[in-house]
């Protein structure tokens, strides 16, 4: 049986309800009797809480309760568990569901106001009087470790949470013998999640107090269930968490937040259904952000421009807490050496506490950071040696003969990082071919006309399919339709469609015959979450395994029913058929038989149900790769940057649905363009956020974005049964590096050197004037 749906651009099963306004996002769910919550948040970046006076708010008409950490019991005052424990951190800080005694960033949750409407709750939130004692705030990453620097938390002696060190090879030897060594100072700036749907939590306690239903706009409903069951001392079966339609995730919605704890706690305390929906103003101060890093690096290269070694140091801002441990600096670290076959590497990353919004992965996690610094170094080598940026990369890449390639680095579990497959040179060449060979001539011509165009380039490798597992159940129903249940919920990626495609081919049916249910902990026992470009690998492989097993069972039973050899049976059009005959039995009939009937034993050796459950365990990582090229024009008078073209050559292994992969790439690239040119989360010296609306914080708009031309390579991964690699972040990882590379190229006549992003028009005009 050849693949029919796997690999095809199948239109999404998710879409009909979403294009007609019938989606059910968290705030759309009808919940009779629900009360509305507004969160009182800290207006200070760092302060002690002396007292909270809730009397005026409680007296306001329509207010049901005002709750502080003192009202909700010990668990509301205890720091939340770190989602990825980090033993290397001497003073691990996480916030408590509601602040207790002190606050450490503007936006930290302090109290809940529960009222009959959200408007009334917000009115009353302004009446909660919190007596704060402000303390000095730490917002200056560059000087965070200086003597006398303000500390971000009184529990700390220093702002240093810990230092990560990594590397391999004879660094001193490589640098001393290298023909060239270049130094760079580089920096990256934080951006936010900015899913168009903000976060939200709704909780409905059972009147008995023994059960609770929770809805959260989350990427990880199972993590919410685990956290709440442990915190509330309840059985996991009594805590049902549903991720309804989720309007974008991009990483920050994978965190179990203060509100994920506080709203269910308050609902149990009051015995009422409660709903909190984050508004956009809150999103800027209460949803995690990411990317602030300051780097000092050196690269060693040989006379031909092959990069031999990199060493450097990074100051990594993690904000006020470590909700996800040190996963960000760890992903930055383990993303070295990127696509390059370095002989030696030595990196240290100081993880710093500041009084800004806590940091957790935003699309790409620490990877775009490492990509940016490596690509800046590669461009530097090319410029200094007078050879093309493409050639520096071709010469420095891991070569095709080297796979599987152990980079010398260690993964999170301590195992060696080993790239599985690909051809980085060929992928770059595909991008170059698509881009065309006439750029230099056009650039010269444009410059003669006083126009400044530039070409950018960036290459990357991305670890995808993160451990440990996802799972899926496939169950044929007596009506012949198939239920596919999984823990791997989506936030727009189209999991239902691709999972149905994978299963349909095995079962000889169409994707439309399959109902996929995901993200409801009552429907599937275990799950991890949709993060780290991991679900095509883990969820997709699980679906494949469950479908293969279901198919085998159908054939086994049908061979008895049809009195035929298993080898002669095929699955087609919802039937198991004896090939070359008209003898057949429908999947529905087989399912009915295996569902069983009173007093009638099932066939010998056959377990009940035409169904199978499989868990794919990702014991080895798969690595996607690609090269991006873009063309920009810079107006040297205004500093405006226009992206004229953007080309992506991308290899994420076998494609399940090329249309959806292209969608992931395009959206990812545009996120990276936002990081390069638009998105600025500015804090003043007191830790007050200055960009808390979409007039001040700019996101990419349709008028500024280019068309994105995509070329696919498919190097199947040998490490999972369907050959796939993740595609969710590969667009974002190189995009900022690519755009910055192009701007620097455009402005080369002015000797402008770029080592940071975002770059505003004002920044560029200043650099041009200085150059």
């Amino acid at each position, binding site marked *: 049986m050849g693949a029919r749906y796997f690999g095809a651009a199948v*239109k*999404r099963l*998710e*879409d*009909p309800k*979403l*294009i*007609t*306004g*019938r*989606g*059910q*996002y968290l*705030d*759309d769910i*009808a919940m009779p009797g629900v009360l509305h919550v507004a969160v009182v948040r800290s207006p200070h970046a760092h302060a002690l809480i002396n007292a909270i006076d809730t009397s005026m708010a409680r007296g306001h008409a329509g207010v049901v309760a005002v709750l502080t950490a003192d009202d909700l019991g010990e668990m509301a005052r205890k720091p939340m568990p770190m989602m990825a424990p980090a033993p290397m951190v001497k003073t691990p800080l996480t916030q408590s569901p509601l602040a207790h005694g002190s606050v450490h960033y503007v936006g930290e949750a302090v109290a809940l106001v529960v009222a009959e409407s959200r*408007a*009334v709750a917000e*009115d009353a939130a302004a009446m909660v009087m919190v007596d704060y004692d402000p303390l000095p705030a730490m917002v200056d990453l560059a000087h965070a470790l200086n003597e006398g620097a303000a500390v971000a938390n009184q529990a700390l002696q220093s702002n240093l949470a810990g230092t990560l060190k990594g590397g391999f090879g004879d660094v001193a030897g490589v640098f001393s013998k290298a023909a060239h060594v270049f130094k760079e100072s580089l920096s990256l700036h934080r951006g936010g999640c*900015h*899913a*168009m*749907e*903000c976060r939200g939590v709704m909780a409905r306690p059972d009147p008995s107090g023994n059960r609770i239903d929770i809805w959260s706009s989350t990427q990880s409903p199972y993590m919410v269930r685990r956290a709440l069951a442990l915190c509330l001392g309840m059985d996991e079966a009594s805590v049902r968490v549903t991720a309804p*339609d*989720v*309007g*974008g*995730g*991009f990483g920050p919605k994978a965190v179990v937040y203060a509100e994920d704890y506080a709203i269910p706690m308050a609902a149990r305390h009051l015995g009422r259904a409660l709903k909190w929906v984050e*508004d*956009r103003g809150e999103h800027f101060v209460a949803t995690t952000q990411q990317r602030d890093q300051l780097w000092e690096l050196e690269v060693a290269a040989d006379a031909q421009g092959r990069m031999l070694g990199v060493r450097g140091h990074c100051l990594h801002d993690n904000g006020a807490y470590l909700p996800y441990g040190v996963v960000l600096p760890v992903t930055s670290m383990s993303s070295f050496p990127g696509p390059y076959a370095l002989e030696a590497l030595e990196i240290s990353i100081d993880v710093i506490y500041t009084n800004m919004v806590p940091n957790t992965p935003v699309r790409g996690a620490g990877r775009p950071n490492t990509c940016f610094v490596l690509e800046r170094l590669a461009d530097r080598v090319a410029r200094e040696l007078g050879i093309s940026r493409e050639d520096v990369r071709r010469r420095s890449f891991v070569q095709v003969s080297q796979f599987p390639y152990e980079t010398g680095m260690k993964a999170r579990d301590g195992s060696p990082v080993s790239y599985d497959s690909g051809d980085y040179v060929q992928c770059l060449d595909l991008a170059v071919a698509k881009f065309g060979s006439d750029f230099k001539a056009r650039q010269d011509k444009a410059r003669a006309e006083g126009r400044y165009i530039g070409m950018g380039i960036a290459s990357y490798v991305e670890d995808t399919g993160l451990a440990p597992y996802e799972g899926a159940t496939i169950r044929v129903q007596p009506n012949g339709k198939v239920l596919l249940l999984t823990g791997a919920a989506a*936030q*727009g*990626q*189209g999991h239902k469609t691709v999972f149905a495609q994978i299963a349909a081919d095995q079962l000889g049916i169409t994707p439309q015959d399959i109902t996929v249910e995901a993200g409801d902990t009552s429907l599937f026992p275990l799950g991890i979450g949709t993060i780290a470009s991991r679900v095509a690998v883990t969820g997709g492989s699980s679906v494949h395994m469950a479908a293969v097993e279901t198919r085998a069972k159908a054939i086994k039973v049908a061979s008895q029913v049809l009195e035929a050899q298993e080898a002669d049976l095929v699955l087609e059009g919802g039937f198991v058929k004896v090939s070359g005959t008209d003898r057949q039995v429908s999947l529905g009939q087989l399912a009915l038989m295996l569902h069983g009937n009173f007093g009638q034993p099932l066939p010998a050796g056959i377990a009940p149900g035409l169904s199978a459950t499989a868990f794919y365990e990702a014991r080895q990582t798969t690595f996607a790769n690609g090269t991006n090229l873009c063309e920009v024009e810079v107006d040297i008078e205004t500093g405006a940057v226009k992206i004229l073209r953007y080309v992506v050559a991308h290899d994420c292994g076998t494609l399940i649905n090329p*249309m*959806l992969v*292209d*969608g992931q790439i*395009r*959206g*990812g*690239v*545009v*996120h990276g363009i936002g990081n390069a040119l638009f998105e600025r989360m500015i804090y003043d010296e007191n830790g007050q956020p200055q960009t808390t*609306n*979409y*007039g001040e914080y700019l*996101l*990419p*708009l*349709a*008028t500024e*974005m280019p*068309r*994105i031309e995509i070329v696919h390579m498919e190097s199947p991964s040998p490490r999972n049964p369907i050959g796939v690699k993740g595609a969710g972040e590969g667009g974002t990882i190189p995009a900022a590096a690519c755009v910055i590379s192009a701007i620097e190229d455009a402005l080369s006549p002015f000797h402008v050197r770029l080592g940071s992003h975002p770059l505003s028009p004002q920044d560029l005009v200043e650099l041009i004037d200085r150059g």
Partner: protein
Amino acid sequence: MSELDHAQTTRHISVTVNGTVYERDVLTRTHLGDFLRQELGLTGTHLGCEHGVCGACTIILDGQPIRSCLMLAVQANGATIRTIEGLAQADGTLHPVQEAFWDKHGLQCGFCTPGMVTTLAAVLEADPTLDETAIREAISGNICRCTGYETIVDAALQAASRMRGDH
């Protein structure tokens, strides 16, 4: 009167939404988006920023695409409104813009989609000859974090072609 006393003031309004006339007493401070979602249960209109930039809450009011978060419900008294729920025909036939969004993968998470679709339906019904530049301009007040806009533009171009009868 204090600000909070004003919060209790109501007015009677009559609006026609997706062909149905609704008579309601509304708090004067309720914005139109909240009114549609909370009073009429039309939750297809999404609130993305509530400060008039993201465009998710766009509806068609007397033929114009407008942001329902920037208008008070009382200001809509007497108006005729179409929301995302009212774009398909009664028999379920999709509006050409809806159809094209499905065909061209013009949505991922779907949250900005109602605002995108209503904006494009309004501008293309007024002028189906819009080119790519004009379409990008038309949705420049609608933020999408998922798609990078390209497939939305492609969907709009397909819809425009069908609405012109080009096929």
